């Protein structure tokens, strides 16, 4: 059985999926995230509130996620964050 992902890993995986696709539809992101719909919603709500990502609608009403600057910063610093948490046992 796959090891349960830590919160930081889940956020990293979601942000990576969004960044790799530049714009990604919610359903596709849900499948890519490998989360239950409820957990997916919780994570995405948090990322939206904290302005890591944004959700846009086009003229046809189709919604897509794209990454914001803070989200990019997280991905760049992920190793540092992970390293810090492991070193200090947090």
């Amino acid at each position, binding site marked *: 059985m796959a090891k349960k992902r830590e*919160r*930081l890993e889940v956020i990293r995986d979601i942000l990576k999926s969004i960044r790799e696709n530049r714009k990604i539809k919610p359903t596709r992101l849900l499948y890519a995230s490998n989360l239950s719909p409820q957990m997916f919603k919780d994570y995405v709500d*948090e990322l939206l509130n*904290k302005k890591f990502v944004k959700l846009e609608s086009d003229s046809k009403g189709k919604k897509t996620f794209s990454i914001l600057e*803070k989200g990019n*910063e*997280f991905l760049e*610093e992920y190793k*540092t*964050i992970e*390293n*810090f*948490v*492991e*070193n*200090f*046992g*947090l």
Partner: protein
Amino acid sequence: MDLYSFIIQNKEVFKLVYALIVILACFLIVLKTHKLFKISLHRGIRYFRNAFFFYGIAFAIRYSFSFFLSFDQSFSEYSFFLNILFGYFLIMAGFVLLYSLLWRKIDSGKKEFSSLMNSKMLIFYLLALIIVVLDYLWGGYYFMFFSQILVFIFATIISYSNYRKNKGKVYFPQFYFIAMVLSLFAWALNALAGLYFHWNQIVMINIYLFNMVFFLLFLYGVVRATRI
């Protein structure tokens, strides 16, 4: 003249240097971990940051008061109040540092708006207040000493367990464990200094040295781990 005699003869200067080192270390730790928290929103990092925020406030209060007292003795009428504040923030720092190691097992997962005003922190605030009030009523610091000895016994055990789990994988857990042991010694010595050694100056100097190493170890760990 040996080192201890030299320090005792110049104690005001050394107290100031000690305070500046500790306050600066806390400031830098808070600054670097705050940046990391802003990026990650990791709760453990948040509590860790808060612990050193409280340490910084405690030492800033204590030593700015001593500094002003050396110029104007009328400040001595505020001494009991400022000593209570010092003790309060020191106790809070210990509680929050321990909590930064335990939060995964205790936190409900419910998002909290503020890391300084939530149900767990309110318990710590209340406990710290009870401890300082008891110390004030008993005319000593023994409740603070014994509460912190307990805190650092648990922190030492947890940090040793983290060290064993991560041996060879990451570098800092061994230093974290050493820092916890030093702090435990410092608090135990503090209690002994009051109970048996009549606040002997040589014992107190050793306590200050342990404390300084504690803060410098954490600063080293934070600087090395963050490099931001």
